[in-house]
């Protein structure tokens, strides 16, 4: 199994606040690697640092692409893509423009074909085709998430990081988003999936890490993690109502 992303003794700080503390993690090619954990565990800080958006200490390497520099621009040019928790769409622009800009960094590639990429994305998300000329900020929450995903896919990423793709979506839409992720996995896209929805995340991933208070508490094969009594108790056990209760209580913390 070849490692796509290797991080060791990885620490992210905001002034005195330590968001990620001495984390080591590996994501393999062709696999879905899940990072689960409560709000404030440092999951978002982790992917933002991997994407080059915030500074970090420690070692970070993409063994398959050793020459990639530590800047967001270089990451994007190496076709490493992040769909952030905040979506970060271009609100006043149309769905069409948002998608086209998703392929902005790929313009220079040989055989670059914008139309083919758009077709591919529209086939994956027929809803976006219907909303093609609508402004992004008039879309529903689910459609926005699809647009954010679609925009990232326009790059044809070799490594895709998804930060809480199910956050704030209705259950039906969540199911659809996870269906799309499963489809991407089946197409061989390597994915790092950050999720609070541990049950769904573990179901479609190969390996998993449990992050708590900025540190890795558990890691291993996703099926083993899903069977671990501690995980069952903290993340999978109890009723759905309890789980959402916990989420509400913790939603005030740093993500």
């Amino acid at each position, binding site marked *: 199994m070849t490692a796509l992303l290797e991080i060791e003794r990885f620490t992210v700080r905001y002034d005195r606040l330590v968001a990620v503390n001495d984390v080591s993690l590996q994501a393999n090619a062709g696999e879905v690697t899940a990072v689960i954990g409560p709000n404030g565990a440092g999951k978002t800080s982790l992917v933002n640092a991997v*994407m080059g*958006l915030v500074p970090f200490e420690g070692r970070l390497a993409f063994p398959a692409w050793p020459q990639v*520099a530590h800047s*967001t*621009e270089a990451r*994007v*040019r190496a076709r490493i*893509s*992040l769909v*952030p928790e*905040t*979506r*970060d*769409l*271009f*609100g*006043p*622009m149309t769905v069409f*423009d948002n998608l*086209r*800009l*998703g392929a*902005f*960094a790929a*313009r220079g590639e040989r055989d670059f074909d914008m139309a083919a990429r758009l077709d591919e994305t529209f086939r994956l998300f027929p809803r976006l085709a219907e909303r093609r000329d609508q402004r992004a*900020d008039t879309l529903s929450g689910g459609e926005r998430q699809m647009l954010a995903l679609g*925009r*990232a896919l326009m*790059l044809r990423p070799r490594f895709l990081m998804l930060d809480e793709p199910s956050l704030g979506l209705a259950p039906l839409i969540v199911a659809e988003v996870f269906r799309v992720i499963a489809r991407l996995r089946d197409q061989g896209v390597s994915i790092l999936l950050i999720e609070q929805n541990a049950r769904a995340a573990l179901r479609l991933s190969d390996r998993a890490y449990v992050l708590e208070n900025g540190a890795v508490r558990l890691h291993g094969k996703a099926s083993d993690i899903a069977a671990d009594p501690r995980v069952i108790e903290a993340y999978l056990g109890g009723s759905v109502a309890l789980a959402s209760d916990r989420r509400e209580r913790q939603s005030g913390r740093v993500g």
Partner: protein
Amino acid sequence: MTADVALILLQDGIVSGAVYVLLATVLVLIFSVTRVIFVPQGDLIAFTALTLSAFETGNVPGTVWLLMFGATAAMLLELRQAVPQRDRARILRSLLRFGALPALIAIVAVFLVPKTAPLLWKMTVSCALVACLGPLIYRIVFQPLAASSPLVLLIAAIATHLGLNSVGLHLFGAEGVRTEGFSGQPFSIFGIIVTQQAAGVLASSVIAVVGLYLFFRLSLRGRALLATAYNRRGAELVGISTETAGRTVFFVAGLAAAVSGLLIGPTTTLYYDSGFILGLKGFVGAIVGGMAVYPLAAAGALLVGTVEAFASFWASAYRDVIVFLLIIPVLFWRSVSSVPAEDGLE
């Protein structure tokens, strides 16, 4: 007032309005991409006219020294970041962009523009000198502040204006200049006498504004520049460099300022400090147009030019006051109108 006089005033108004259109368009553009209210835009316009006038009298314009000084500062800033990272491509780029290119333009300006050179060549070199100042100002002043609030950026813009103003006095002196215009016989359309200068101003302004509009409407690169305005992080995540975006709009701004300076130079006397009032009038045009939409900003700027022309006929001493008064009803209307103001950022 007879109809004839009104027609002449209207023509005057439209011609100076055309220059404000360019100014307002650029102000809106810079604001929407970088959130900077670029006060020194007017200074660059005045500097262009002063540069051209120096060439006309056979002197080396002070702009050359300004360019060399700015380029050196920008290059040092860039190298200080690039050298410790051992980023060879970036070191090479900064040597070319802030070293070789400005040096080349400066050498041309010092040695290859004799007093007898054709007007078009002098204009081209003046344009190049001033257009390069745009990206330099961005690199030195605004790029390090890119993440700051609009208020901080405004303060920096005013400081830049004051700095340029003082340097301008030192480099160009206190005398006003009026540059040579496009010569040639006036012609008449529908019985209205139009000078070639006026026609040139209108044509250049229309070409520039339509060109900018099409660029931002249709091209992916133009959309990418706007995308940085709508969502900085989103733009970074699709690989649009906010630094490149800033540099590009400031280059466009410098170029537009240079063109405006060439257009306005023959119609009015410009001093080292004329830029501020010019910039303010472009700003009024932009505000009247809502500070967001290009066609509207252009209409606002035309209105400013027309009001100015009529005001100077009736009450020339109060000309500027009357122009600036325009802003009050507009702001009042905007604050009472129920639709929340859209500033092109959200």
